């Protein structure tokens, strides 16, 4: 019974006041969410409407489907009936774990039950959240179509009138993108502090610049380097683009922990290390646990921190396939864009140690159908010999294999067009005391893939590099290095070229060997012909040798029949050099010393292809220099030939342009100097006037700043001291006077 007004106590009044306070906002905020615990429930809609009697039958039928994705039981399925004893066409199901419930929604939603009925599976929570009354508008509202937004021109940098190249420079906390201006200071495009957390990386065709953050990878592009795409892989450490820039692989040592409601990642990515992304959509295609971490210690505890195998996924040249190796067991080849395992199984290869895709799509002699090639090798197992093989994909056929003995290690080097694979075989003698290296070169394009064995080298080969788009190669060998010695082991640099023999390239022959070097790195010009052989990461030697393989001068008699004329153009030193990078056009070489390796004299120097140093840029805390790659040229072979033929004409034009630019720059410098000097003179004059004014104002005599002379100190300074000085001064003065006189 409600109290009448008269009997209302003080307290009641207050209570009423309290009720009037609107605390619905608080209620909403602190309302206990019942979602927890309901995570395991799903709602199945779209079921046939059946009478009470056949309900059990339907549930049993349904259970078969439900148990395929998780665990549930008959008791956990609740199918309500209405007052007519007919089911309502939906059911509630409880699974054992939320994960199973999620899996059920993912896999069963939209699947047909029979011809007439298609299941609609949702999480109970979702129904509650989205389907609650008021949340859904009764009237249909057409979704607003975003107006078409023109995308930025991602390749605008290629239309530079002077065909300059861009590069990214990472130093201190700042990353900048610059135009290369030869010997003039580079022109800045953008410069941003804290643009990346770890490093920057260009995509293979230069369209995107990737920056790496704890939240994931961010791609930048367009004229102003605006945000293009995000790939939220938490704590990502390594990034790899596919060759055609369609896909991206990211790796983190930490397994991903996906939280509910993540906009991009789903539970499928939980616990994984590697994600393969589709760059255009920004969505993950598939994720993996990396082998190296899951594998555990295989070869004893000697190497507790096994090196990460990167790139873990290797792409075929046309991006149609991507493959990963489980060392010693198998190679898994996935088909894109669906990322399904090719032929549903991995290729079992006992003992497989390494594999490489051909970097280009090769057309073999006599082979008509489409294929991609990949080469791999296996070591000696028991009495079986070591083996190098070429496999054709998608047929998974072995095209060519070669057996090898006494093998300690093998490296596979594809030539950039896929014409050759050089298999560098390190062999040990029977006693395992001395080492030797064999080069076995597979001529992929020729019929039956013949293998050529290049004379065995007594020393171990520490570096090998094919000429891009060419048939020549350079290798560096070293003798037995006394372990732990402070001095660098002496190395020899050998140049090889094929013999000139008709249209087919002949056998590979040694052109020359340069002994007593310390070189350890080979950098070919991306256009071939020129090569830099350098000593990097060294404490005492920093030489860069610039070689020309097609010198236009006289040729040595003994090398007449070789397709090479070797000439050392220049040797340059760069203290503490750690990295060498050719620009994508093969016109410039940048040598750099990064703070990531050591902290002495960090910076970068730019040289021409011939070794002439154009500019030195000592930079504090210099970290990374990367040229922006260029996509392959659009000119046809004929057009390129035409350009090469008329090179003289073009170069005349360019010379004039260069001269003009220099003239302009010089005038500008003179003008600024003039201005600066005039400003300085004017400043001095004004300052003098102001000082004179001040002196007047304070009534200070003109000689206010002159020294006070102490009375008891007769002019000491004019004693012998000055006499000595004057002797010298006088002589000069007298001479001058004679001239004037």
């Amino acid at each position, binding site marked *: 019974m409600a109290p009448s007004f008269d009997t209302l106590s003080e307290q009641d009044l207050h209570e009423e006041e309290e009720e009037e306070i609107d605390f619905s906002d608080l209620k909403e905020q602190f309302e206990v969410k019942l979602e927890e615990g309901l995570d395991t429930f799903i709602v199945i809609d779209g079921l046939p409407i059946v009478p009470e009697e056949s309900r059990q039958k339907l549930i049993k039928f349904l259970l078969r489907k439900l148990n395929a994705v998780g665990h549930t039981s008959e008791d956990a399925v609740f199918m309500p009936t209405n007052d007519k004893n007919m089911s309502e066409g939906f059911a509630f199901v409880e699974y054992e774990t939320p994960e199973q419930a999620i899996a059920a929604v993912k896999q069963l939603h939209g699947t047909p039950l029979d011809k007439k009925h298609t299941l609609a599976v949702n999480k109970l929570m979702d129904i509650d959240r989205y389907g609650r009354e008021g949340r859904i508008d009764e009237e249909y509202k057409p979704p607003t179509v975003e107006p078409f937004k023109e995308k930025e021109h991602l390749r605008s940098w290629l239309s530079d009138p002077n065909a300059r190249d861009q590069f990214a420079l990472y130093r201190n906390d700042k990353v900048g993108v610059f135009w290369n201006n030869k010997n003039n200071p580079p022109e800045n495009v953008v410069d941003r502090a804290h643009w990346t957390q770890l490093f920057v990386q260009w995509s293979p065709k230069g369209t995107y610049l990737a920056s790496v953050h704890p939240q994931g990878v961010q791609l930048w592009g367009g004229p102003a380097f605006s945000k293009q795409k995000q790939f939220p892989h938490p704590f990502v450490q390594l990034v790899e683009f596919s060759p055609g820039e369609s896909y991206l692989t990211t790796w983190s040592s930490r397994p991903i922990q996906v939280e509910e409601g993540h906009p991009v990642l789903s539970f499928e990515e939980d616990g994984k290390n590697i994600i393969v992304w589709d760059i255009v959509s920004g969505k993950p295609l598939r994720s993996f646990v990396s082998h190296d971490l899951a594998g555990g210690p295989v070869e004893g505890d000697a190497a507790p921190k096994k090196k990460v195998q990167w790139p873990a996924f290797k792409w075929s040249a046309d991006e149609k396939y991507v493959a990963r190796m489980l060392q010693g067991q198998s190679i898994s080849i996935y088909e894109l864009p669906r990322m399904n395992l090719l032929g549903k199984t991995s290729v079992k290869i006992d003992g497989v140690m390494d594999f490489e895709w051909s970097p280009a799509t090769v057309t073999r002699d006599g082979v008509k159908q489409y294929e991609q090639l990949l080469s791999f090798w296996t070591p000696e197992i028991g009495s079986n010999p070591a083996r190098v093989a070429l496999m054709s994909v998608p047929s998974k056929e072995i095209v060519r294999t070669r057996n090898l003995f006494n093998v300690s290690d093998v490296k596979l080097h594809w030539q950039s067009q896929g014409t050759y694979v050089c298999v560098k075989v390190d062999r040990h003698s029977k006693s395992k005391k001395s080492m030797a290296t064999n080069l076995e070169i597979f001529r992929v394009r020729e019929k039956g893939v013949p293998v050529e064995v290049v004379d065995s080298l007594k020393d171990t080969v520490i570096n090998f590099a094919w000429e891009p788009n060419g048939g020549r190669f350079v290798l560096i060998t070293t003798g037995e290095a006394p372990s732990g010695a402070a001095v660098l082991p002496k190395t020899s640099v050998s140049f090889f070229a094929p013999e000139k023999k008709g249209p087919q390239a002949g056998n590979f022959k040694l052109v020359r060997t340069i002994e007593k070097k310390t070189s350890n790195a080979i950098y070919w010009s991306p256009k071939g012909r020129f090569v830099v052989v350098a000593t990097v990461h060294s404490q005492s030697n920093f030489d860069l040798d610039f070689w020309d393989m097609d010198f236009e001068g006289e040729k040595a008699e003994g090398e007449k029949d070789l397709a090479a004329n070797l000439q050392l153009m220049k040797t340059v030193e760069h*203290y503490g050099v750690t990295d060498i990078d050719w620009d994508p056009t093969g016109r410039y070489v940048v040598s750099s010393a990064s703070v990531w390796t050591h902290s002495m004299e960090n910076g970068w120097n730019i040289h021409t292809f011939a070794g002439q140093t154009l500019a030195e840029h000592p930079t504090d805390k210099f970290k990374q220099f990367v040229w922006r790659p260029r996509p392959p040229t659009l000119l046809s072979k004929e057009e390129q030939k035409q350009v090469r033929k008329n090179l003289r004409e073009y170069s005349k034009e360019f010379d004039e342009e260069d001269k003009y630019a220099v003239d302009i720059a010089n005038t500008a410098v003179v003008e600024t100097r003039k201005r600066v000097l005039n400003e300085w003179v004017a400043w001095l004059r004004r300052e003098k006037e102001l000082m004179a004014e001040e002196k007047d104002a304070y009534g200070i005599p003109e000689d206010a700043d002159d020294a006070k002379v102490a009375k008891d100190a007769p002019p000491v300074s004019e004693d012998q001291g000055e006499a000595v000085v004057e002797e010298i001064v006088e002589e000069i003065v007298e001479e001058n006077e004679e001239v004037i006189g």
Partner: protein
Amino acid sequence: MRPILLSGHERSLNQIKFNRDGDLLFSVAKDKIVCAWWSANGERLGTYNGHQGAIWTVDVSPNTVLLATGSADNTVRLWNVKTGECIKVWDFPTAVKRVEFTPDGSRLLAVTEKRMGFLGTIAVLDINYEDLEAQAEEPSLRITCTESKATVAGWSYLAKYIIAGHEDGSVSQYDSKTGEQLENVQAHEFDNLISDIQFSADRTYFITASKDKSAKLISSRNLAILKTYVADTPLNSAAITPKKEYVILGGGQAAMDVTTTSARQGKFEARFYHKVFEDEIGRVRGHFGPLNTVAVHPNGTAYASGGEDGYVRVHHFDKPYFDFMYEVEREQLRK
């Protein structure tokens, strides 16, 4: 001309100063003695003995009668240049890092270190030339640096302002009469201490050297930054040359880092920059330690540098030095 090597100190140099006539050169080092040299031939005139600690700073009065030194033994001493006697000892609570006479020599400023609970101060002492023995006991002015301690200081034109460089890289201007701070400018990068301040001949502008690897030319009147000279090493000293429009910068890897780096990158060179165009025009090698101090002959005919290696090198300029001119300067001259 071949440099004259003055090897009279046993430890690293802290400051060197020419007198106004330029015939004498005074040098102080960590080895507690003050040396006076003939600048023309490098002969040692004598030493001033008495300090108990490393001597941080030296200045000579414009009339070359008195010499002031500041030391880590917490004293400022006044010496008779001619006789070598110590005339006066002022005691301070902490080490004295910088002393400088006014242009007329009537006052002396001393910058004291911040240590043991004492804040850094700039003290001004009146100097009596009538009777050299009778010097005031107490400073006539005391400026306390509450924010960041002063590391160096000097007098502007007409001794109107005291200009101080601070540990945090800022430069401030004080009224020399009242000690009131008039201006404070963050001239150098924050937390890069200013290691030297030297004035132009007329004291209307000055140059600062800093650990941020740059030197700046600054107006005494309003602390406007006129020019910036960028080097590739921390700087310890900077000087403005009269006659020619140059500045000389000295520096090198900090003493404590030298042992860990290779000699080739110590950058122990005196660098010459064009004062107006800010271009580097030359370097002089020779020291095998960082340059701690550089000083220019008042007539602009020579300069001297003192290094961590304990040597003072006096260089007399050759003819090409005076002949060197930018084309624009030559044009200006012809007008």
